[in-house]
Each structure stands twice: as C-alpha cells, then as structure tokens.
C-alpha cells in the first residue's frame, strides 16, 4: 500500500524559505476541504508615539509587534560546536506524518485520521475545540488557530496529491532538497535514500515518522596538529579516533594542520591517536564530541 514520505537533504538546504513561502502561498486564506481550513496570516505592525496615533490602551506604545503565522514547514537552524567550530544545518520540519501519530491518541470523534496512503489529517470540522491535539505532537508542528479554534498542520498537500501533483514545498525547492515519494515502493527515490541511511528526527518518540533526513549535523571531533617546538602546522599526520567498542576511523591533517571527524555514530568518549613520520606518536582521550581540541603539539 502507498505510504508517502519525504527525504530532506539538509546538506543542500540554504534556508531560502521557498518551501515555507510556497506553503503560505498555498494555504493562507485558502481552504481545501475536507483536509484543511485556511491558514491564518501573519500580522505585524508598529505602534508609533505621535499624538493622535496612539491606541487608547497604550499597551504596546512605541513598539513593534507581531502575531506570528503558522509555519507548517518550519525551518530550524541546528548547531553543534562552538565558535569558531560551529557546525550548522537548516532543517525544514513539516508534519512528520507519523506511522503511529501521537496526535491521534487524544483526539476525539475521529478528529485525526490516517488516509490509506498514510497521510495524517486533522479534520477541520471535527477537531473544533480540541487543543489537546496541539499538545500531543512531540515535534511541535501542530498549530492552534485561535479564531477557528482548531488545530492545524501540514497535510503533505493532500489536495494536490489527490490531483496527482507533488506537495508544493517539494516542487518549490530550487535545490531539490525535499524529495517526495512512496516509501512502500523500494524503487522510489525516497526509499533508496532511506536505504542509504536517511534518518528520522527523534526516533525515541516512538512515533515512526515518515519524514527522513540526510546531512543533519552529526557529532564531530576536530583539532589542529602542530610541531611542538616551531608551532608549524603539520600536514599529512595520520589521525585515528577509536570508540570504546574498539571501532576506529582515520583521517589525515590538511595543509592547515587541521583534521575533522564528522558523522560520528555516538556522542560518547573516544581515544585519539596522531602519527607522523619523524615524530613520536601521541594518544589522548577525547571526553566528549562536538569539540575542537585546539592545537595539539607533536
């Protein structure tokens, strides 16, 4: 049976926001029954202080104010490390279209249901007043519409899928970072990306999301190897990082003496070994990841 999903490649995402503006363009003010009511618009303004212009209550006099919109695909900046060794990716987060949707559990009267193709839909009529549906989502991608008193979220553009189209954000992405397809078809692009190691966000929630990611910032260890006396950068040093289970990865320093291990499987502690001809090898513990070890004299 069809099971729609996304694979989002954050190595490509430049936070251009075309996915989000495309989404707003599709949904703000536009309803697509029976899947979604119109998304409320973002509002903003500036209360000036000129006499005659001041609101009577004066509450927010002389300030900017904003009533944020609903980012059904919310672009989150994820960081690891500290200056000047920050590792950053922009992570677009739509509804995860979970296999076991936590939002379904507290919903009453069939307000949340799953379609045959796996899409999770919040019925805009049956969900009136059910704010607990918003609270139930561990990914924080369900929004409360105060005016209509309904929970709202990304539908994967169910109305477009019904017409044989792709979700709008996937079509709008200029770098094809958002891949849409059928996860039940092993030949589909998304299935192959999942087979190739795409990961879910927070699998520990147990919701089995159908949005997968490539290129999320992974635990890393980096450093710079220098000559103990001259402090010159040492190029070509062999650097080995070994975890507590004895598994190791190896790299060599570049012309700046720098090495960097990315894609580390876990955030635990490691052992580091540095070897270079005509220098004594050096070993040192690495107590935690997402660390730059600074200059390591050899």
């Amino acid at each position: 049976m069809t099971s729609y999903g996304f694979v989002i490649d954050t190595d490509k995402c430049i936070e251009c926001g075309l996915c989000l503006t495309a989404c707003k363009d599709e949904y703000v003010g536009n309803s697509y029954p029976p899947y979604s009511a119109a998304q409320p618009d973002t509002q903003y303004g500036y209360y000036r202080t000129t006499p005659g212009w001041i609101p009577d209550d004066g509450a927010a006099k002389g300030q900017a104010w904003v009533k944020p919109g609903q980012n059904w695909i919310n672009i989150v900046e994820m960081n690891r490390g500290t200056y000047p060794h920050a590792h950053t990716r922009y992570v677009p987060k739509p509804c995860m279209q979970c296999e076991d949707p936590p939002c379904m559990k507290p919903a009453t009267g069939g307000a949340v249901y799953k379609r045959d193709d796996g899409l999770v839909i919040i019925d805009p009529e049956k969900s009136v007043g059910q704010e607990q549906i918003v609270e139930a989502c561990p990914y924080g991608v369900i929004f409360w519409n105060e005016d209509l008193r309904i929970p709202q979220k990304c539908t994967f553009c169910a109305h477009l899928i019904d017409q044989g189209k792709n979700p709008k954000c996937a079509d709008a992405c200029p770098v094809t970072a958002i891949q849409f397809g059928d996860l039940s078809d092993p030949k589909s692009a998304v299935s192959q990306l999942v087979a190739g190691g795409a990961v879910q966000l927070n699998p520990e929630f147990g919701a089995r999301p159908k949005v997968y990611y490539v290129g999320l910032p992974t635990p890393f260890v980096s450093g710079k190897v220098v000559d103990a006396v001259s402090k010159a950068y040492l190029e070509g040093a062999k650097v080995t990082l070994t975890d507590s289970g004895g598994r190791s990865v190896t790299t060599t320093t570049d012309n700046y003496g720098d090495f960097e291990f990315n894609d580390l499987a876990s955030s635990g502690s490691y052992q580091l070994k540095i070897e270079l001809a005509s220098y004594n090898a050096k070993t040192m513990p690495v107590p935690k990841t997402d660390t730059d070890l600074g200059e390591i004299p050899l």
Partner: protein
Amino acid sequence: MSEKNEESAVAGKKVSRRSMLKWTGALAAAAALGAVASYGATELVKPPPEIVPSQPAAAPNEVVLTCATDAGPFLAHVVNGVFVKSEPIAPNETVGPLAFMLRNWLYAPDRIRYPMKRVDFDPGGNRNTQTRGQMRYVRITWNEALDMVANELKRVVDKYTASAIAVQGGHSWSGVLHQGRIQNNGGGWGSKLLGLLGEYLVIDSVGSVPGWSAAVYLMMGGVPSMSSYGIYNNSGIPTSTIIPDQNSLSDIEKNCKLIVYTGTDHACKWYGFTDVAPWFLRFKKAGIKQIVIDPWQNDTAALFADKWIPIVPGTDEALFAAIAYVWITKNLYDKEYVTTHTVGFEKFRDYILGNEDGVPKTPQWAEKICGIDQRTIQALAEEWASKPTVTWSMNSANNRRQYAVEYCRMVITLQAMMGYIGKPGTGIGGGWRPKTTAPVGMRGPPTVPFGPHPSGNTYPNLPPRITAQGFAQAIRNPPFNYTEFDFEAVYPEPGRPEIHMIYSTGGSGSFLNQRPNINANTEALQSSKIEFVVTQNPFWDAITYYSDVVLPVTMFGEREDIVNWQNYSIFSHKVAEPPGEAMNDLDVWRGLATRLGILDKLTGGQTDEQMLRAQYAKSNIPLTYDAFKATGYYRWPLEEQGPFVAYKAFNDDPSKNPPALIGPLPSGKIEIYSSKIANFYGPNDPEAPPIPKYIEYEDPSGGKYPLHYHCGQHPKRGRHSQWQNTSWKRDFENDYINGYRTLWMNSADAAARGIKYGDIVRVFNDLGQILCGAKPSERMMPGFVFNSEGAHYTPREPGVSDTLDLGGNGNVLLPAVNPEKCAQGCITHGYVEVERWTP
C-alpha cells in the same frame, strides 16, 4: 471598514484602534484576502503541462496565467479576479526566488490606495516643510494630485530650471514596457518626461558595486558607471564598467581547484537561491575546495565550504598584502605574466616588502590587524599559489565600505600576480548572471535583445548627478564637492541651482533606506530649501512619509508587461486588481505630460499594447506576439556550449588585446600602479594611493563604541526596501525575531550584556539608535554584530530625527562620509554598542 474611516485615520484625527492599525501597517491582508476564504479544493484544476493558456481553464471561475516580477516567473491562479496563489512554471527549476511572496506583497495592508497630500502642505501658501515625516495625509483626487505635481514641475523649471529637480529612488521595477524608476542609465518614461523639461539632477551612487566599478576602471580600463545599472548604448548593450568579466560557472566547475570567498554569501541570498546555489552544490560535488573568509560563518561557509576563516571586518587588504608578501618572498608568483600583462608591480613589491614605508607586510604584521593566525595566512598563500583559484568577491559587502577600492584592487592585483586572469579555472568571480556564459550586465540575459527601452531615452554618457550619500551634506551645507574615480564633482555646478524639488520613484527607499546616515537625510528632507517632494510608490515606506504628494502606483501582476529573468522571457499577465485608485507609472507620466502639453513627445497616442507589440517586434523570440502571450513564456537555451574564459584574448596576447575593449588604459595592461590615480591625485595622496594598500580605517567616534557593526549585506529575502513589508518575512528568524529585525551577535558578547535569544536590543552610536531582535550565535566572530539592510525606517516618533527606529534600519548607524577618494559608494561598516531594551 469603510474607506472614509481610513481617510480620517490618515488625516491624523483620533480614530478607532482598528482603523489606525490599518494605516500603520498593522493589520494583515485579511481584508484583501477575504474573498478567497471560501475557496475550495473542488474548484482547483490542473494546469495543462508546459503550455499555459491565457484562456480560462476548465473551471469557469479560475484561470492560470504566467506572471513575473523582476525576481522571477511563476504561474498565477486567479479566481474571480482575485490572485489566490502561485505555483512554479515547472517543478524545482523555474522558480522565481520571491514568487510565492508576491501575493503577500500585492495584498499587503500598507499598499497606497489613493493619491494623498500632506495635511498641512499648501503649495499656494505655507508649505510647512518641517512637518515632513509626521505621517499625516489627506486623500485628494487624481486630478488634484496631477495638477499639483504638474504645476510644481512647471513652477520649479520656470524659476530655477530643471536642474533644481532631483530624482531619487528605485531599484529595478521594470519590465520591457513599464518602469517605475527614474534612473541615470537613461531608460524609462519618467526619465524621458523629466528630460523633456531640461537637464535634471540624479541622486544616485554605484550603490551595489562602488569598489569594483572604480577598481576595474582604474586598473583595467573602461567607462566609469554612475550607478549600479551601468550605462547602455542604443542596442541595450552595457558600455560602462561595473564589474570585471568572469569565467563561466561551467569553466569553474571543470577547471577550478580553489574558491576563496571574501565577504560574500551569494548563493544564500534571494538573488542566488535559484541559480547560484545549485552551482555551489555542483562545485562541492566536483571536489573544488572552498574557503570562506568572513567575520560571520555565513550560510555559504556553513553549508558549502571546507573552511571558514574569521577575519576582523574591513581588514581584508592586510590579509591580501601578507599573501602577496609570501608569494614575493617565496617566489611563488607568475613573474612572466606580471611582466607581460601588468605595469607598476615594482612599486607594489616595494610597498609589500617595506621598502616604501619601512613596514614589511608579513603574515605576522597582518595577524595583528586582521586577527588571522600568521601560519594560516602562510598556508592559504601557498595553497592559493598551488592551484587554479577563483576569488569570489564581486557582490561582496567588502566592496561597499571604507577603502573598498583598495580591497578590490588588491584582489585584481593578487590574481594578476598569479596569472589567474584569462585562464581556465581562475579569475575574479561572483557576478550577477551565472547562467550565461558571459555575464555582461544586470539587465536580463544578454541573449534577449529587446533593444533599448521604448521611450528611446538613453544617456550617451554621464548625467548630472550627486551621490546619494552626499544628499544631506548637499542640502544642509553646500557647496558639496567630492572626488570619484579620477574626476571631481561640484555641487551645485557653476551656473546651476541647488535642489528645490525631489521626484522619488521606483518602489525603493534609497536615501531613507539603503544609504547611510538616515537621520541626517530626514533632517535635510525637512529643509525649506526643498520646496516640493513627490513620491510615486506602491506602498508606504520612509521616503513616502517624507513627501508632500504621494501618488499610488501599480506593481507586477497588476498590469501586462514582458519581463526578462535569467534565461526566460515571460509574458506577465495582469493577475490582480490594483488597490484603490493605484495607477500605472506610465499613466501618471502621461497625465503629467498632458498637463504640461508634451504628451505628443512622450508617448503620443500610442496605447500600452501597441507599444508592447512594437517592442516585442524588436526581439528575436521565434513566436508571434499572440503566440508568445498565449504560451506565456519563452525559454532561451542555457549556455552550456562550453566553458567561457574571461580575458582570454588579453591573456593570450596582451599587446593586441587590452583587458577593456571600451576605454582601454594607455598602457593597455593591468595597472597595478594606476596612472589615472597618479595623474589626478598625485603620486602621494594617502587616501588615493596609486598602488593598492591597506589603509587603516579609524573609528570617527574614537573607540567609544566597542562592536564592529555591519549593514552591508542584502536581506536574505527581498531587495532593499522592496518586499520588506511582507508579513511572511516575519516568520523567518533570520529576517525578524519577535517582530524586530534580526541582529546577529556572538554568543559570548550577548551573554556579557545579559542578552538572550529573542530579546529586544537597542543598537546605537552617535549617529542614531535602532531596535533589533537579538540572535546570539556561535557563528559570529566576537566583537562583531550585523543585521541586513533594507528594513523600513520606522521612527518611533514620526518626523523626529534622533528617535528610535523601530524598523531596525542599519543605515541609521552608518556614516555618510567616506574618507576614500576614488569611490563614493555606500558605507556599510561602523561601530556600535548593543544593550537590552525594555519599553
């Protein structure tokens, strides 16, 4: 809400909160979108593949039409005359970077609906120029408005001559027919109309590329450009020098081994989203090493680069000088190329080695200035010399600051030292049109020959002009004299009047937006010397609020036109009704011309469609006009015919081929020692040295404000003041946080000031104060803060110059005076302090 209520709000009377909010841009587009609220899925139809008809589609009440802004094409869905949504012309590839925001913009609550007059402006009596900026307007009729503007034009010309009329504003706003701006590159109906009255004055600068335009002109030759648009000949071909020519991106992908980015984030700004970013991914895939040198780990650094090297803002020239030092002392440069292709290298070498001033420009010397470890400078120099390298710096913020010309000349000098000009995989990169092989201009693909603007109005050379950042000084303290390139400008020119009228057009705030020292400019605008200010604009922004008469005009999607974007020519249909009584710019000018009795010289009796058809007939699109209109767009073949190498002829035979085809230098070579500078400024002017140097910029406040501040980078989404009033921008934390313009700062700097994410902060110095939303980040060099330019200047107390700017426009904090003599570009670098702010 009735329109009557809106008017009373504008008149400044006590009004209900609701109607007040509407006019201060507070309410969202709910009212405008109300008609769409019940729009249901069943009414949707699938647009036919590829060919898009202008006829109604299957559902009787929905049409799908091609439309375009100057930021790209899209398909517009229109139901009962309401523009309800957009979609890509084809998935993924053909997306205008801002296309999906147009609906949000067209229906924005701060669109101007009716002609307006400042409430206490009386052209026959007291003009009350000192109350400009107080935002009090009354509605007038179009007849009243056009009569008033026409009378003022006539009065000013009769009394002072047309030279007393200054035009300002506007970035692109243009299709083939409609063009909002009056600019000094000559195109456009407004330029033609005013030109019929006499020789008016332009307030403009080479705002985007001041450093490059001067550096290229001085070192390689060419014709100096007076604006970022360049000057075009009668065939629409640019004849002025704006930026160096660059190798095609396909050549870079194939042959380059190292890209050094300095102060640029090209792929990750709106103008790079859809065309540059995919190329950067290809560069990464091709294994080209990418190094970003920038005080901010910008998105290019975070996403594409192998290495980020933080640098103290404004000190790139010191780094470059030290790189030259390494090359010279280690014999790593191309001596033969330097001999055959350049002149004056010996003097540069003397400066680098310290023979001139006793200071060798060693990596150790540079480390103290730019904060980069001398070993890193050494390694970078050796790596750069070892393989084909491109410097990516064209649209760099570095070329919009104090001593920008030195920065750009250093880049050219380094690439010339390595012989990296005119060879595959090398060059000076980062221009504007990456999809074409030879980007020669910024005005659409060179392959789209629509010819000159139908107004037929072109300037063969330099129009009278003052720089935009000199505006306040020119008004408040004339005469205002300055140098630029290798000539001197005088204001007012002998025998000419001062400025007495300002005509502002083109949907962009210019000197109340993207030009420095806004507080000085607002004060100057209140001068009684300026007898009349008229602004023709689609939306309320700062300059509009400083105008005596405001004329509402239409935008893209509200009129038919043909728009060129990258390799597309698009028939841009009318997809939305203009708000209120908004009129096309062209019709405004027709109305004025009629009143001035010169309509026959402007457009005569030609209709828009007649002119559009006539203009189309000049193009070589292989479709009839009607077929083109029905199809919606024509896609020009992409330039994949093979890598293009800029300056190849110069590289191959410099004796026959100077780097500049028009206006070559006497030497015909790359002048590391600029004969133009030496001749004009003399050989020893410290602010205009003939060889490129690192010149220390001294903080005019004497170190009172500890943080480097920068406002030279473009907004991630939107051009200058355009698109900044879209509400959806408020949902991006890199644009706005809690309703305030985002200020990036180093986490430790923030913590030291008790500032947390999302706090409202006051950013201030002697020039002014703005409010921002704080974004502490590990991606920022300590001691450095920035926000992006373009935010609408929104004074807390309208009309008061030193008030807090709620909008967070960084140009409030930047000085207008550039100590540098060869370029008068915007200054984007200053010094500030930041503190938490509570109302």
